[in-house]
């Protein structure tokens, strides 16, 4: 059997593009039905304590209000702790909305007002009056750090050799502290759930989620519903970046209200409420590096302390990167947590990586300056040919090519090492670079491939397209597998009733869903050939799978392609019953370690007197295995770079520690990059063949664009200004402070 690759590897326009540009792609909060009710959520105003009284009389008295739910009148559903645990819940006890009077954080949902229309619900919600019993709170990680603990009880640390001794004896060393600001995901679509109560009592739940199956499991478990009574759909997701990995509180509240009222209910969060669930955690980091005079790394120490909630221990991979990116035999890496009175943090695009790689990649730049060495040379000097953390070889690693091609495209050789040495007009110009990496994962995924009666193909798996291009790449993979044009392939995703898939995240969807779809298509081909052989007078009666090709909508004898059975004829011969196969695909134990890699180069311009920074140019050179769709993949990388720019220069969720409350809870105070902030982004894919990582050879591109970008920008700002800012975001005042200090 041969497979021609017409679509995989070539730029294809998004298959859902027309829907998105005409406004006809429906998102979770846009499905409607007759008699739909609208819910508005009331959130706690204190950081810790309990609700002493909650007065809903005024809200209930508003004409059009159907019900006001609180912890005092909520239905008695399952509400068991374990039932609330979703696929990706961290250790601890998940928040159970309206469970009881306790308040764990400012912004916690404490009431749902349901009304006949949106305006009435919103108005009535403003009339819910709450009195609190206040308990002293702590939201300041620097104050809470003294109560730090090890969530892995020693199992998570990476220790090899003796890093302290090596650091003490290293001829050159640096020892620095770094901090990133808290970030909120802020997809443009606010979280929303529309729960439609069907005529037969079944629930169709349209939820903004990265995993329809995750939402489904939790709904079924929490509310104790029969499995066939619930279907969760998320055909279009208006961005998520991790915010949709866990079911958010609007899902529980919407389903709860619908079940009690036996009416369809939509709950859409406000933008301000988008700051009342997970976030990228505040993280204090120390990186110490020791090196020989020639730059050879002797010691790497990386400690991270992150905040988590009182009720769950959120962890992410922050420090491991420092033992992975460079060759070093004396390494100590440790990650600790401290409890603060906020909601539980959550995975956010490049979780841990955007945090840890910012620190190690800034520290590497500082070490290069200390050594008087080119930062790129320092990285090449310590290039890791093997994953020392896992003691495994890499399945592929074209990082050297990323460095080479990226540097060339960027013009790195023009870099002047001395800070403040390039001035153009009123601007100081600086160059910076950093390495990025992200693990290539594969999650267990089931998939179905079906030949439909009209001879077209449907492939299905319960994954999601959150803007990443999943619809498009799965169509490319399936079309090539069956020799069909892409418009003869229907991709069904975002539906809990489809074959199981893990949450759409970790840059693993192209690999996981893609491999599963490929496998399903391959098995379908066998089934189709078997069926084709059975047709009376079949020209394929005596041929095996290796003797046929699937092309132009037919199964053809490779030796004589005119001897063929068309898929349409096959479907008709099958009595118009669909021919379908369903498969499970799981990762196998691999002797290899698999990562995508990038080299990020940044040019910044900083006004020489005022200190206002601008990123004027980024080159991101990426090696991520096979690129299924260079156009959508490029968009992914660009989006990741913009995310990194936000982290580096703009985004900061500020907590008023006296109030224990995020005060930057809307988009005027919480700045994500605007169009004017984003100039020239050049994405370059380095060719990388990887037979071992998965059958498709793909590594994923969702996070790698973020990794390293923040450090590259910070390093460029240092090169431009001579100011090393070690707390993100790097705002004008911090640069100015560096000059005037």
């Amino acid at each position, binding site marked *: 059997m041969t497979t021609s690759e017409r679509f995989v590897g070539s730029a294809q326009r998004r298959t859902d593009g027309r829907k998105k540009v005409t406004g006809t792609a429906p998102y979770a909060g846009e499905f409607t039905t007759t008699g739909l009710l609208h819910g508005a959520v009331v959130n706690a105003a204190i950081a810790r304590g309990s609700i002493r009284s909650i007065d809903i009389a005024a809200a209930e008295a508003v004409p059009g209000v159907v019900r006001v739910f609180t912890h005092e009148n909520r239905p008695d559903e399952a509400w068991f702790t374990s039932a609330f645990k979703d696929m990706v819940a961290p250790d601890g006890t998940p928040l159970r909305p309206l469970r009881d009077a306790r308040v764990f954080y400012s912004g916690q949902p404490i009431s749902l007002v349901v009304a006949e229309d949106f*305006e009435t619900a919103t108005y009535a919600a403003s009339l819910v009056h709450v009195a609190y019993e206040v308990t002293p709170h702590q939201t300041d990680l620097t104050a809470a750090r003294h109560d730090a603990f090890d969530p892995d009880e020693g199992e998570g640390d990476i220790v090899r050799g003796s890093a302290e001794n090596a650091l003490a004896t290293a001829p050159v060393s640096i020892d620095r502290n770094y901090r990133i600001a808290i970030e909120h995901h802020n997809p443009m679509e606010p979280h929303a759930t529309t729960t439609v109560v069907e005529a037969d009592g079944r629930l169709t739940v349209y939820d903004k989620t990265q995993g329809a199956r995750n939402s489904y499991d939790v709904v079924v478990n929490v509310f104790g519903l029969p499995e066939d009574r619930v279907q969760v759909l998320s055909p279009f997701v208006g961005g998520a970046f991790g915010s949709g990995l866990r079911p958010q509180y609007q899902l529980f509240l919407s389903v709860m209200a619908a079940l009690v009222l036996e009416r369809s209910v939509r709950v859409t969060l406000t933008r301000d409420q988008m700051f009342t669930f997970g976030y990228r955690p505040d993280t204090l980091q120390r990186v110490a590096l020791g090196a020989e005079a020639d730059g050879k790394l002797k010691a790497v120490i990386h400690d991270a302390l992150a905040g988590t909630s009182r009720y769950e221990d959120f962890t992410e991979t922050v420090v491991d990167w420092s033992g992975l990116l460079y060759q070093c035999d004396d390494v100590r890496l440790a990650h600790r947590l401290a409890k603060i009175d906020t909601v539980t943090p959550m995975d956010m695009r490049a979780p841990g990586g955007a945090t840890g790689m910012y620190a190690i990649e800034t520290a590497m730049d500082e070490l290069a300056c200390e050594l008087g060495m080119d930062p790129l040379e320092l990285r090449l000097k310590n290039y890791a040919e093997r994953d020392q953390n896992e003691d495994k070889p890499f399945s592929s690693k074209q990082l050297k090519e990323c460095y080479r091609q990226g540097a060339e495209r960027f013009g790195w050789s023009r870099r002047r090492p001395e800070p403040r040495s390039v001035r153009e007009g009123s601007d100081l110009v600086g160059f910076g670079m950093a390495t990025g990496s992200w693990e290539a994962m594969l999650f267990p995924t089931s998939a179905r491939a079906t030949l439909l009666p009209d001879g077209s193909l449907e492939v299905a798996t319960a994954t999601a397209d959150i803007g990443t291009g999943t619809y498009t790449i799965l169509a490319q993979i399936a079309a090539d597998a069956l020799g069909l044009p892409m418009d003869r392939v229907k991709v069904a995703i975002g539906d809990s009733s489809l074959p199981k898939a893990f949450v759409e995240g970790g840059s693993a969807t192209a690999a996981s869903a893609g491999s599963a779809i490929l496998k399903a298509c391959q098995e379908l081909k066998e089934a189709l050939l078997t069926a084709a052989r059975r047709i009376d007078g079949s020209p394929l009666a005596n041929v095996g799978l290796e003797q046929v090709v699937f092309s132009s909508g037919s199964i053809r004898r490779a030796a004589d392609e005119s001897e063929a059975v068309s898929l349409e004829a096959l479907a008709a011969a099958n009595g118009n019953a669909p021919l379908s196969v369903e498969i499970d695909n799981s990762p196998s134990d691999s002797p290899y370690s698999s990562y995508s890699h990038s080299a990020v180069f940044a040019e910044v311009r900083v006004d020489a007197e005022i200190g206002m920074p601008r990123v004027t140019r980024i080159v991101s050179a990426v090696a991520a295995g096979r690129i299924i769709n260079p156009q959508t993949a490029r968009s992914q990388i660009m989006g990741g770079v913009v995310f990194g720019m936000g982290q580096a220069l703009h985004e900061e969720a500020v907590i008023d520690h006296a109030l224990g409350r995020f005060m930057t*809870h809307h988009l005027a105070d919480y700045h994500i990059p605007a169009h*004017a902030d984003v100039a020239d982004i050049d994405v370059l894919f380095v060719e990388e063949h990887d037979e071992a990582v998965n059958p498709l050879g793909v590594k994923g591109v969702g996070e790698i664009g973020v990794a390293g970008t923040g450090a590259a920008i910070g390093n460029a700002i240092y090169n431009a200004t001579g100011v090393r800012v070690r707390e993100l975001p790097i705002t004008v005042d911090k640069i100015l402070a560096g000059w005037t200090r």
Partner: protein
Amino acid sequence: MRPFSYTRASDVGEAVAALAANDGARFIAGGTNLLDLMKYDVERPEHLIDITALPLDRIENTADGGLSIGAMVRNTDIAYDEQVAARFPLLASAILAGASPQLRNSATTGGNLRQRTRCSYFYDVSTPCNKREPGSGCPAKTGFARYHAILGASERCIATHPSDMCVGLAALGATVRVEGPEGSRSIPFSDFHRLPGDTPQVDTTLAHGEMVVAVDLPGKGFSDHYSYLKIRDRLSYAFALISVAAALDMDGDTIAEARLALGGVAHKPWRNAEAEAAMRGKPAVETTFAEAADIVLAEAETVPGNAFKPELARRTMIRALSQAAAGTPQSQSDKRIQ
């Protein structure tokens, strides 16, 4: 938002009478700030009087050679008006430095003057705020105060006025024309907005029932030597950390007259007559500008959250004045600071 009734006014007298008769009434025009605040439950009007149909939508020449801008003229229409662009480019530049094209298309002259602070505590009814709820306190003084005042603030309130356009108008020495139950009056721009003092809930010197009907610009537009320089946390669509309107009248290399107004530093667009006077008759060089900046900032007081602002303000003032002197005003599209 809370329920309200709604009527449309067809002439100014009727609108003013309707407002004066109802303490719970507010005018609405562009709605870009009032509706925003109503959705946050900060503003709770019982009645809205739509004044967009009033015949106040023209930009006209005045007898003394200036321009009169009607209260209902949309911000965009001022910024791209040929007369304004040619004779008062500082005003056009200040407007284009603010908000977004969409907001400028809705927002009116009168509404821009009447917009309220963007203080995060003012906006959040779950927190104390003396401006929103007198006597409840001011958490900004120990909290999130990046956008807060360093000049003219009070024990009770350190909020800032968020407008860019008003900073331009302040520098140009505009006059606000007002109609009210007691008739019409004119208010010098510097007297229109007030400092917080003990009554931070009061933003302006308007009486209830009074309506801004126009803003008059005197003839002198400083069109050869001006600049509007705004420093913010991203390069567009963000409120000012510091903004500076600078305008100079040059006699050769000597400053004949100087105007300097700041945004992001006080409860009102900030002008300092002493600093402007100090530049008069001096050469247009950095030392002159630095002296003026020092005079402006002599009384500056900071809180932990905005301690960086005096130095940033000083440098921004010097730069904007230098740009004005050189005749190279800041572009609002090219983000390089000229």
